[in-house]
């Protein structure tokens, strides 16, 4: 890979306005979704649970983006510089998730049974956890997560944007110095957010793996979402020739690898609990083997792991846009199934009941997320124009 390739990136052609259309689409979707979900189930448990699933879904994509940017920065990678801005834009939506959290906050008593005094009163185990699982501390932690995520996301994306204007190499060094701290913060906040918002749905259950589980799904989600975003940009006339089939192949390789990683983590958690067979732990999986939850779980094993594993194995597939789009959409659907399967059995213990409220809540959260994404993207170029490693990234070729 020889450097010094004199390819210039035309800022006009690769302006963030290409993703700006998402603002409009997202706003419409968001408003319709919000209206529909409130109309269908406003104020009920169904509404809050559907919102929680949708929230964790899009949060996982945004947090996955944060992870990607941090790791790409700290490893001094060059291959992905051309598409790093796209992922940064996804990361930059993190502050919006504080706003999107409001319905969860409003419905917290509907969602989390440990918040009820009666639940704790007769349960010494929940009482024992009260030092951690109490509303005040829970809320404070949530604020902390949003502050940490917003600070990290905003700082990293504004510094990157500043480099577009000044081209200072110092900025790259600064980002690289800060990235490890970002990773530590990311690990802790993501883990405890998962514990607070997902694991505490079942306050008697626990798993040390839960943070890693959410993380693995998040990386699969962001890689899939990036593939879709890049192709959306292509359709708007941007990024062609800059993000090439070589970069897409690398994203696909990572998607392949992290799909296996997700399966490994998911299986590890399941298997250890299955084997030791301790009722305090197995209750989690017993609940998810009732009725249609059983088939949903099997669908997850097949669809989220086996199908993508064989599909993404051949080199040729990883270089074909049409096939990558299919697999990206597929994995994003499977990721939804994953989170739905994790969260919903607490509301619908008899079986999976995917309904209009779920769709509407998904549209609401997703729409607002997309609108935010479109808005942050349109304010900057779609490529880090003066990143010192841009030439190396532009001329990158897989063997």
């Amino acid at each position, binding site marked *: 890979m020889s450097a010094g390739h004199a390819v210039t990136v035309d800022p006009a052609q690769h302006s963030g306005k290409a993703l700006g259309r998402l603002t409009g689409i997202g706003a419409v979707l968001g408003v319709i979704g919000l209206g529909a979900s409130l109309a269908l189930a406003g104020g009920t448990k169904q509404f809050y649970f559907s919102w929680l699933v949708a929230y964790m879904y899009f949060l996982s994509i945004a947090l996955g983006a944060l992870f990607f940017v941090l790791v790409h920065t700290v490893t001094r990678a060059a291959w992905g510089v051309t598409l790093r801005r796209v992922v940064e834009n996804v990361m930059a939506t993190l502050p919006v998730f504080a706003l999107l959290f409001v319905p969860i906050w409003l419905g917290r008593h509907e969602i989390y049974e440990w918040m009820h005094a009666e639940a704790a009163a007769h349960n010494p185990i929940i009482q024992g956890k009260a030092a951690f699982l109490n509303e005040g501390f829970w809320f404070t932690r949530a604020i902390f997560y949003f502050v940490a995520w917003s600070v990290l996301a905003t700082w990293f994306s504004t510094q990157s944007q500043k480099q577009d204007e000044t081209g200072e190499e110092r900025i790259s060094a600064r980002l690289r110095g800060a990235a490890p701290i970002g990773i530590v913060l990311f690990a802790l906040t993501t883990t405890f957010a998962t514990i607070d918002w997902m694991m505490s749905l079942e306050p008697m259950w626990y798993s040390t793996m839960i943070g890693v589980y959410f993380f693995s799904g998040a990386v699969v989600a962001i890689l899939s979402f990036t593939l879709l975003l890049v192709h959306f940009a292509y359709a708007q006339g941007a990024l062609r020739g800059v993000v090439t089939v070589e970069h897409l192949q690398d994203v696909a390789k990572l998607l392949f690898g992290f799909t296996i990683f997700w399966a490994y983590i998911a*299986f590890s958690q*399941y*298997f250890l609990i*299955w*084997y030791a*067979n301790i009722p305090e732990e197995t209750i989690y999986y017993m609940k998810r083997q009732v009725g249609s939850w059983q088939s949903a779980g099997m669908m997850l094993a097949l669809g989220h792991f086996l199908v993508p594993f064989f599909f993404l*194995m051949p080199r040729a597939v990883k270089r074909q846009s049409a096939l990558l789009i299919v697999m990206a959409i597929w994995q994003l659907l499977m990721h939804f199934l994953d989170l739905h399967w994790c969260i919903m059995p607490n509301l619908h213990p008899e079986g999976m009941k995917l309904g209009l409220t779920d769709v509407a809540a998904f549209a609401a959260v997703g729409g607002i997320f997309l609108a935010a994404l479109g808005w942050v993207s349109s304010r900057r170029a779609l490529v880090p124009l003066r990143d010192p490693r841009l030439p190396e990234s532009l001329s990158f070729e897989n*063997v």
Partner: protein
Amino acid sequence: MPGFLPPFFPEGEHFGLLAEYDSPGALFHACEKVRDAGYSKWDAHSPFPIHGIEKAMGIGRSRLPYVTLVCGLTGVIGGMALQLWANGIAYPMIISGKPFFNWQPYVPITFECGILLAALSTVFGMFAFNKLPMHFHPLFGVERFEKVTDDGFFISVEAWDPKFDAAATERLLASTGATNVQLVPRRGATS
């Protein structure tokens, strides 16, 4: 392919021609010329793999991954089948209340069997594709050729290539920037 027997090459007085080059770039460009001239029974030699030389030589990708895939899947299916049979049918035992037929505890060994067979087939498949071991190749009889594992770059064109002509091929090789072109005798010397 048993390497301790002399390789089975077609009859002829010479093995072919050997051209030497002094850099990977020179070798790369020379390969393109030889490929374009229509030769098929020839090879390039270098101390390390040269990036992109397959395209310069006009040879496609290796088919080794298919071998790996088939053998890996065989390992997976075989491993699972062995366990299900041995612990479920041949000598079922009750172990900590687990059912006679289950898949969960069999996953680790199934996975390992798959990897083992895949890896073995990859290595021995690669040897087969490369026709290794081949200890007595005629090129080992040329003293200059010892540099190939140090810093020498070579092209060898075999005498039974349809386009081979001692004089014409030598001229072609000389024109590609070779620092030395010589004829290689038939039988390779042993070490």
